[in-house]
């Protein structure tokens, strides 16, 4: 079974580039050059150098001693929370800014939900001296005020998206409209979503997560392969990166956790794979939350980073082929998991990552199992929510 993208930009029947003609030239250009650039020695060297001495990679693989004894198994945490800017998002923005530089682009557009991708984009734009415009849902601007302040301090212009539910979906719509109106800009997309080649670009750039896990586990366990890898999924970039080098290792069980919000049957949810149907969103054929009339349903999750009605086409394909087991965790389950990690390991995770941790309560492990959970980001940005709910 092939889990990677084919030469037409599809993962099985999902993916493609369903975009207005207005974006065609930009997308065609990117499709034509991205692999040559990503695979060039120049790119690889500079990317590796920045990940090492700017981002602070490799991130540790922490053996979670107390959590392991609580769940009677061997739990490791992949510490993306320790990256510069506090989440895995910067793995992608470092790579894409190098792409943008290579293409001679001077103005960068990004969308953001929780603000993590916006901050990671503003950061690399400051580093490379490029203009940065971040679209963010007006509701998210309010609920993620510290990240808005960080983006501004980094020199970015933050434009609140006032359409729809004023969250990530709407920010993405506005970013794409900005790109239509400013075709000489580079759209620096934050997840494995959007038209081909973005899902593949972001998957490749985030694959550093699984690449490092393999090296680190080899040292710890004398095998690169764990029994389980568990990651949260909104658009799905940290999960795509965490699964990437394990997709063809059949013995490794891959688990992705969606945000159930108030419950998958509550109509206040963001569990796209669980309740979604095939359709088109942001230029990609994938699973999405929509009504019988093909109108996109506004998602809900306590976590702004998982509050998205679509999912990357790679995940739609991994779900359909059964390679990855997609489960979901509610707001309350995520909050409890965050609390458990804080009290047992001294790590406050992002609310998004807390969904991955919540899977530990839902699964049965053997004592000898090696379980890797991705802590995709740190919880500083979520303190207000934690203070209110815990």
């Amino acid at each position: 079974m092939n889990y990677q993208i084919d030469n037409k930009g599809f993962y099985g029947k999902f993916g493609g580039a369903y975009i207005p003609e207005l974006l065609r030239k930009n997308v065609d250009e990117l499709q034509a050059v991205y692999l040559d650039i990503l695979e060039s020695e120049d790119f690889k060297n500079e990317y590796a150098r920045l990940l090492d001495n700017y981002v602070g990679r490799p991130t540790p693989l922490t053996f979670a001693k107390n959590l392991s004894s609580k769940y009677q198994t061997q739990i490791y945490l992949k510490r993306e929370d320790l990256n510069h800017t506090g989440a895995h998002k910067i793995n992608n923005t470092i790579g894409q800014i190098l792409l943008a530089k290579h293409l001679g682009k001077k103005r960068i557009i990004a969308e953001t939900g929780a603000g993590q991708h916006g901050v990671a984009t503003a950061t690399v734009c400051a580093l490379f001296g490029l203009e940065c415009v971040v679209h963010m849902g007006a509701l998210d601007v309010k609920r993620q005020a510290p990240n808005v302040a960080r983006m501004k301090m980094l020199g970015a212009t933050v434009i609140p998206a006032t359409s729809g539910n004023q969250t990530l979906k709407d920010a993405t719509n506005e970013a794409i409209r900005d790109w239509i109106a400013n075709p000489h800009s580079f759209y620096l997309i934050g997840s494995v979503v959007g038209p081909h080649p973005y899902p593949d670009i972001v998957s490749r750039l985030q694959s550093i997560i699984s690449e490092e896990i393999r090296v680190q586990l080899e040292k710890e366990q004398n095998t690169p392969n764990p029994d389980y890898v568990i990651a949260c999924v909104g658009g799905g970039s940290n999960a795509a990166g965490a699964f990437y080098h394990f997709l063809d290792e059949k013995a490794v069980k891959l688990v992705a956790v969606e945000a159930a919000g108030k419950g998958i049957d509550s109509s206040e949810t963001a569990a796209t794979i669980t309740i979604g149907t095939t359709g088109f969103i942001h230029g990609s054929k994938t699973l999405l939350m929509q009504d019988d009339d093909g109108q996109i349903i506004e998602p809900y999750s306590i976590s702004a980073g998982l509050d998205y009605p679509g999912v990357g086409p790679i995940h739609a394909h991994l779900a359909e082929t059964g390679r990855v087991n997609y489960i979901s965790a509610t707001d309350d389950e995520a909050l409890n998991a965050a609390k458990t990690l804080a009290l047992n390991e001294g790590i406050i995770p992002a609310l998004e990552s807390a969904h991955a941790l919540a899977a530990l309560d839902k699964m049965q492990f053997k004592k000898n199992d090696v379980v890797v959970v991705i802590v995709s980001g740190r919880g500083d940005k979520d303190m207000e929510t934690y203070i209110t709910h815990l």
Partner: protein
Amino acid sequence: MNRIDNLFQNKKQDILSIYFPAGYPNLNDTVSNLELLQKNGVDMVEIGIPFSDPLADGSAIQAASKQALDNGMTLSLLFEQLSSVRKTVSIPLLLMGYWNTIYRYGVDLFLQDCQKVGIDGLIIPDLPLEEFEEHYKSDFHKYGIYNVLLACPETDEARFKNLANASQGFLYLVSSSATTGGSLKTSEKQKDYFNRIKMIETPSLIGFGIANRNNFEYACQFANGAIVGTAFIKALEKNQAQEFIKDLI
């Protein structure tokens, strides 16, 4: 003969096409809007299928689409509303909408229903030409529904020719790199782009940013006519649709 072909055969100049979303401003205004437009000399109408996430549209059409959806507009209801439209309206009618709503409805059923109520063509901005040709062209042909393609200033010359050849009925020229509802900024570069029309045999209409008589006349210097959307919606909002059309032609 398809009504679109008929129109372009009989009228070469100053063709006016109007866009408005179905179910706007009130749920049951669709057909009365069409009758009003025909009565006032409009040559063709594009009925928008309201969508929650219209990527290529500016704020006015976004708001109008949202209002139509809030009014209760659906695709099934639209076909119901249009079920006897051909008793009173004879000008060419197109549906313009995003691929997700059509795909969800079922492409074959959608085309069948288009044929049944007398729709002549479709404009689907996010259905790529390659996908259309590979999977849907024969279905469109079977039901006699035209697929109208868009070209824009960033389109290179080779693709422009491909689009012109593949587009059925006419080629939709997007005036500038912008979502709908912007203002028409004229430039020498834009003239060069518009003048590409001379190299092709397919008729063409210019749209996006055509807001008033001046814009309309300017566009008609290059193409067979123009498409007005946002400005008409604003007139509908103010209950001045008839006056607006009279000022335009």
